[in-house]
């Protein structure tokens, strides 16, 4: 800069809104007459804007997952509370608040039953669990699992399970339903028999006979309601997919039934595509199906033999 660092520093501070009124007046007057400083100001404005664009784009992509608080911090925080005079007030207030919250929860649980404790029976790769009060963690020893992070915010629902690239988890709910969560999936347990799929793939194998209640996997487009069934729901760029291997599934949107389909033991698997607007189409099996859908059919091999599922 031809005017030197003094003016450069002032131009920088002007853009940051950090000049005194006198300095600001002088700097603005200088900028009106000095081309070099004016060009420098324009470049700083451009740099800042590009800098923020780059970081915002990266941060928006990275900061979409739920906030997870490791259990060790929560334990340390709760251990620290309750000591000292000031803290004892907090403790008393906490107990009173806890009593009120308990009463409210007890009242609300009569209408909205809490999640029954289930079990994370297997996991590999990167798996995050949020509020797993609802899910007992008992991973088989030796499995390569990154430390689970568990929130301690104390809310009873929802419980999230998120798997990263290469990750997978199997959760068995209290009623014996087996939920397989594929890699790159984000799933919310609203209750033991109601899941919400945000992204990725989830497969369910429900006990037979099922209890008289519905088992529902909700997506942004529709609900998949199962009655005694083995099935997978996939969310990808093309919309939502249902791979029904055995039993009966209803596809429902706004309480309106779009499809009801039953697949008997030994019959080929049924594949449906649901657009984000809720249009449902049955799709024949072909090797050109999206890999996530083919993956659901292939991974179902352990549950239903491939020849049976594909009618071969």
């Amino acid at each position, binding site marked *: 800069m031809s005017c030197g660092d003094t003016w450069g520093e002032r131009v920088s501070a002007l853009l940051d809104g950090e000049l005194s009124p006198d300095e600001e007046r002088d700097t603005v007057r200088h900028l009106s007459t000095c081309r070099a400083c004016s060009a420098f100001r324009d470049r700083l404005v451009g740099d800042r804007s590009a800098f*923020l664009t780059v970081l915002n784009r*990266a941060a928006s992509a990275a900061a979409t997952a739920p*906030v997870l608080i490791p259990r060790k911090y929560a334990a340390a925080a709760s251990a620290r509370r309750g000591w000292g005079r000031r803290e004892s007030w907090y403790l008393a207030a906490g107990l009173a608040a806890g009593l009120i919250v308990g009463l409210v929860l007890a009242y609300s649980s009569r209408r909205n039953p809490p999640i029954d404790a289930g079990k994370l029976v297997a996991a590999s790769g990167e798996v995050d669990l949020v509020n797993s009060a609802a899910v007992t963690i008992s991973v088989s020893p030796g499995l390569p699992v990154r430390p689970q992070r568990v929130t301690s915010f104390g809310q009873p629902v929802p419980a999230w399970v998120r798997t990263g690239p290469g990750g997978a988890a199997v959760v068995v709910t209290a009623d014996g339903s087996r939920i397989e969560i594929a890699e790159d999936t984000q799933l919310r347990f609203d209750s033991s028999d109601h899941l919400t799929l945000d992204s990725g793939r989830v497969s369910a194998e429900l006990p037979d006979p099922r209890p008289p209640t519905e088992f529902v996997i909700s997506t942004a487009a529709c609900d998949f309601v199962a009655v005694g069934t083995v099935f997978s729901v996939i969310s990808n760029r093309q919309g939502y997919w249902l791979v029904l291997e055995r039993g009966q599934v209803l596809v429902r949107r706004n309480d309106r039934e779009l499809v009801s389909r039953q697949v008997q033991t030994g019959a080929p698997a049924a594949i449906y595509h649901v657009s984000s607007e809720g249009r449902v189409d049955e799709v024949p099996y072909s090797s050109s199906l999206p890999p996530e859908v083919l993956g659901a059919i292939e991974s179902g091999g352990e549950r239903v033999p491939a020849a049976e599922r594909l009618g071969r």
Partner: protein
Amino acid sequence: MDDAALVMRAQAGDCSAFDELARRHRRVATAMAIHLTGDVVGAEDVVQDSLAVAYEKLGGLREPERFKAWLYTIVRRMCVRERRLRPRGQVALDDVPEPAVSQDMSPLENRILTAMNDLPRSYRELLAARYIGEMSYQEMSRMFGVAEGAVRVRVFRAKQRLRRCLECLEREASEASRYELR
């Protein structure tokens, strides 16, 4: 509700208030961590850990209105720790940073990303606090433990350094395109 009120509620045991604070500041904290660590994947972990530390230490925050600066100080410390703990020469597969250059970004944005990664740590921290955290010179002076006047000079130098890095990359890019045309 402002940050100070949420902090006071969280200090009194209202977990949803902390949740709201985390939601408000998470994206900016992540941007800061990406800038300081140069690692998109690692930054998310740093922010999660920083929020956990903030949750644990919130009771000790005497000035609730300073929550933002306080949280960014935690993020900054966690980033320093993350960089120190990162093994040299050999990194785990999970820790491989994102490529510095992305196909989704314009040439200018890619040059910015490279220039940011080339800045010394002290300048990165200043730009993160000013541009991402939108902290005032007064807040930065508390955070870095230097006088406000010194913050003003250093912020200018950091911007100047970023500009020089960019000019350098722009020159290299134009020379490369001239070479390709021949």
